[in-house]
């Protein structure tokens, strides 16, 4: 499933639910992505973004009760594309995710891969 020509894209998973994070990691690895890190909190995610410099990220909107807006800002600041994956049916809060692709949880694997590929191109 991976693109043999290129180096696999480096992906950061920002997800507080441990099992979902493990699931996503598995799914992405199965599709040939290089999962460079999994961050369960806003603090660790922002740190991971700056240190790991991933090619793209998946972003949960709510991290242990906190809004993940700072992470989104950090990502945007570095020009890193991301896909929002959330259990909420719509955006809540006041920060701007409108331009980001949105995947509803539970995640449909194909949809996620397609949107991730889309942001990477």
């Amino acid at each position: 499933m991976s693109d043999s020509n290129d180096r696999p894209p480096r992906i950061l998973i920002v997800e507080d639910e441990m099992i979902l994070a493990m699931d996503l990691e598995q799914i992405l690895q199965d599709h040939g992505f290089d999962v460079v890190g999994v961050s369960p909190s806003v603090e660790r995610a922002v740190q991971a973004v700056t240190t790991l410099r991933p090619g793209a990220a998946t972003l949960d909107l709510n991290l242990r009760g906190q809004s993940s807006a700072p992470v989104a800002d950090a990502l945007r600041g570095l020009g890193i594309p991301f896909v929002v994956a959330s259990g909420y049916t719509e955006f809540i809060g006041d920060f701007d995710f409108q331009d980001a692709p949105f995947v509803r949880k539970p995640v449909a694997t194909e949809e996620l891969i397609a949107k991730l590929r889309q942001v990477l191109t």
Partner: protein
Amino acid sequence: MTDPENPSSATVETSNHIPICAVGASAGGVKALRRLFHRLPEDLGMAYVVIVHLSPEHPSVLGEILAGCTDMPVHQVNDTPQLLRNNVYVIAPDQELVIEGENIHARDFTQPRGRRAPVDVFFRSVASARGDGMAVILSGAGDDGANGVRAVTEAGGVVFAQDPSEAEFSAMPQNAIATGVVNFIAPIDGLAERIAEVARSKEAVRSLDMSGSFNDLRRIVGFLRARTGHDFSSYKRATVMRRVLRRMQVCRITNLKDYGEYLRTAPEEAQELFGDLLISVTQFFRDEAHFQVLTTAAIRPLLEDCGSETDVRIWSVGCATGEEAYSLAILLLEEAERLKISPQIQIFASDLDEGALGTAREGRYPKSIAADVSEERLERYFVDERTHYRVRKEVRDIVLFASHSVLKDPPFMRLDLIVCRNLLIYMEKALQEQLLNLFHYGLRPNGCLFLGSAESADAATQFFSSIDRDARIFRAKTMGRRQMPALPHVSTEDIHRPLHRQANAPVDRPPSAAEAHVQALESTAPPSVLVDEHGQILHLSPSAGRFILHSAGTFSTKLSDVVRPELRLDLKVGLDRALEGTLPMLTHPAQVDFDGTFRRIALQIARVPSREGSMKRALVLFLDAGPTLSDDTPEDDTRVSLSDDSRRLYAELKAAQEALVVSRAEHESAIEDLRAANEELQSINEEYRSTSEELETSKEELQSMNEELQTVNAELKSKLENISTAHSDLRNLTTATEIGTLFLDGKLRIRMFTPPTADLFNITDMDVGRNITDFTHRLRYDGIEREARRVLMDLTPVETELQSQDGRWFMMRLRPYRTVEDRIEGVVVTFIDVTSRRETERRLQASQQEYQTLFNSIDEGFGVMQVAFDGDDDAATDCRFIEINDAFERQTGLRDVLGKTLSELVPDLEPDWLETFGRIARSGTPERFEAPAAAIDRYYEAYVFPVGDKDARKVGMLFRDISDRKQAEAHQQMLKHELSHRVKNTLAVVQAIARQPTTKGTSVDEFRDQLVGRIRALAHAHDQLVETDWQTASLGKLVEATLSVYGSVTDGQFRIDGPEIMLSPRQALSLALVLHELTTNAAKYGALSHEKGTHEVLWNRTVPADARRVTLSWRERDGPPVDGNPTPGFGMKLIEQAVDYELDGSVERTLAPEGLSLSIAFPVA
């Protein structure tokens, strides 16, 4: 030594004169005069003199008018005609009349116009010139005549006055009557009758036999002495007789005997006669020239001598009504002022007449005294009390009036001046001398005596020398200390003593040689008598006695009184002539009856030169011309030689001549009469013409006055109508308002009240004028009187509510009663029935209270707001709370809301609140809404509705704080989201778990069991969380629940221990999965798979390193042997991930041979 045969000389005086009837009149007098003269008989024998007040500029026609009323001749007096009986004399304009002897004299006024009193002047002149006379006062204004009638009375005249009620102008008769001397008061007709009666009785009295009446007179005087204690016997008989005759005229008694009887029977007559005898007339500054002399000759030296130390003492004897005493006082004060000294002046003024003294002490005198007193004196010494003048107190103070008889009482002593005027003239000479002696005794050395104009001190030359003979001022001669002379009336003997002395004195004086000569003459010469200038007998020759015949009565030494009656007249005339001139005279022989033999006696009277010069004497010789020859008349004797023819012719000629004279006189008088009548008629015509003109003028005046009166009347009428309208308005007002009104005056007496008040105070119309405090009222209030008095004092209205006894309530108002002129004249009390108002008020209050209770007891907040707008179309700018209930503050948390505006209370309130209020206030449509009020952190459900009408711009708001509900709703919403999120998350977890790769060779069943176990573990964790409301989970319970799947926790296989630690839901879920993996692993491969295996789960807080970290240790023992170090499977990976990821903790795994040991450390809250 009075000659009983000689009639009194006084009566001779009256009988010789024509009696005068003086008539005074003024305003309204012409009518009265005409009537009077119409009525008067023309044969009364009197001369009538009419005095009226005439205008000096206009000729008078009064004479002509009166001539038309009487047949008596009427003359206007312009010069000095002789008075004639039955003639009428009328005063001329600008002249006053006086009597001069037998004539009436017209002269210019002595007083300036305005102070003239011609009636007084003439009456006085009548009084002084005639002893008697009549004075008649008719209608007139003013008081002219009042002084005159006193003078007339004093002189013995009779006074008449017109009845004031009949007189057109009553003042003049009234003033005359007020003097008390008027004898008759009657209407004109009556007056005419009385005048006629008195005139006739005067005629009768005149013809009385005086000699016969002397005894009667003595009896009368004796009776008077017994009755009154005063002896008039030594008063001049003429005076006494004149007064008695006057009384007789007044009583219309014609002889003395009858009058004596009348005096005895009528007790008041004695007093009347006594009063008449005392009457004396005085006036201010009588004989003013004499007073001037008195001032310079006596008073001025007196004051100059005495300085201020000693006092000046003066005695006014017979002061009557005090004019003379006051005149003296004024002179003294004036003189003292001029000399600038202020001596003590004391004037004693004495009289017998108590009535006169009373008048004198009062010091009130009629206005007519202005004729006697100068204007300056009136100003300075009198107070003008309008109807009269009153002597000022300073003058009255120095005059002491005392009832004192100069004849009976001891005299005043140490006097500087005695004034005794017109008293001595009434007294016999002897008495005069006694009095003068007494005066001398009372006077200080060099003291002065001032007598009346007809008196002198000659009777006592040893005591007094004259200072000014004309003014009758004398000086007391200095003598050694003397004993007080006997008082004249203390004993009867004393009366005659001085007479004897005087009678003896000349007898002692002649030398003996002369006496011898006289005796020699006496033997040969005819009998003779020596008399002094007054006719008093000084000496009789031896044979002179037979010519003396003393009449009955008191003894007289006057020769003319005691000589035989036949000789008296001749003697009197002869003596007068001889004493006046120096020539001796011889009288015609008179027939004298010597006890039946008639002899002809002539008198030779010669003045004898006296040695003292001043004292004249006369010698009277009685010459006997022998017996009467026969009865033949002397005429016959002289004409006896003429022939009969001649005698007849003589007689005829004489008769013819007489007839001629008579007829000529008659003719002349007739012509005169006609001329007078003609003139009178012309004058009357003139008078009528002017009267007509006057009437015309009067008529015009009357018309204009009538018109004025009509105007005034119309005005009054309209005023009356106004008042009547006002009155009925007032009455209707009081009735209509049903307000009880009570008007009280300043002393709280009822003035007026309205029916409602009558019940409250139990008063009726009869009680007007009584004091309000006299009544018991029906009020439960006692302060009305007090309040009323306070209102009168403070003038501030009082208002109070009070209850009546029948339970009704009244509003009582007290206000001062102000007249239109703003005077306070009492209090107005009003009572307004306020019973129903009070009841309404009470109900309203109750209802309000109920409403308030309700209002305050509801839980919802309530407020009424006044909404303010900027303009008509603009939105509301603000609103103010005008009413709120208790719940308002509870519901809002605001304090002191009432009266404040919304912007003051909550400045940053959402603007839609105010918009809503404004909209509702405008539209009037209520609205119900929910809205937040973030500024006060609340959320409300509110119902806003308009209050009152739309223009009131008021809204009410009923509201409730629904913040809690809103919070719950938000929470629920949040929970819904959370649940959805969690369910999806859980499902995602389940999906992830299910997607986990399995160990190779795992069957579908095993996979299923594995999956179900993991899901159950999650379910257990959820159970724990649900128990604590998804808040916390107990670590111990979680461990127990996880392990209990594989056996009882208590059976010894397990050892579970640790303190109570609470986990967050996330920690609990993760730890549940971890424990599940460990347990399933132990059950498959570890201690739980072996019967003897034991299991230990212990946890504790990491002490002391960090109290907020927990270390949980998992230890398996005695399980099946552990083979090496197997690769960790998915389970272990899950554990590590979970500890790292979810618990932020660390895990340490030790696979010892005896079993697995695991230590997990993680932070807790």
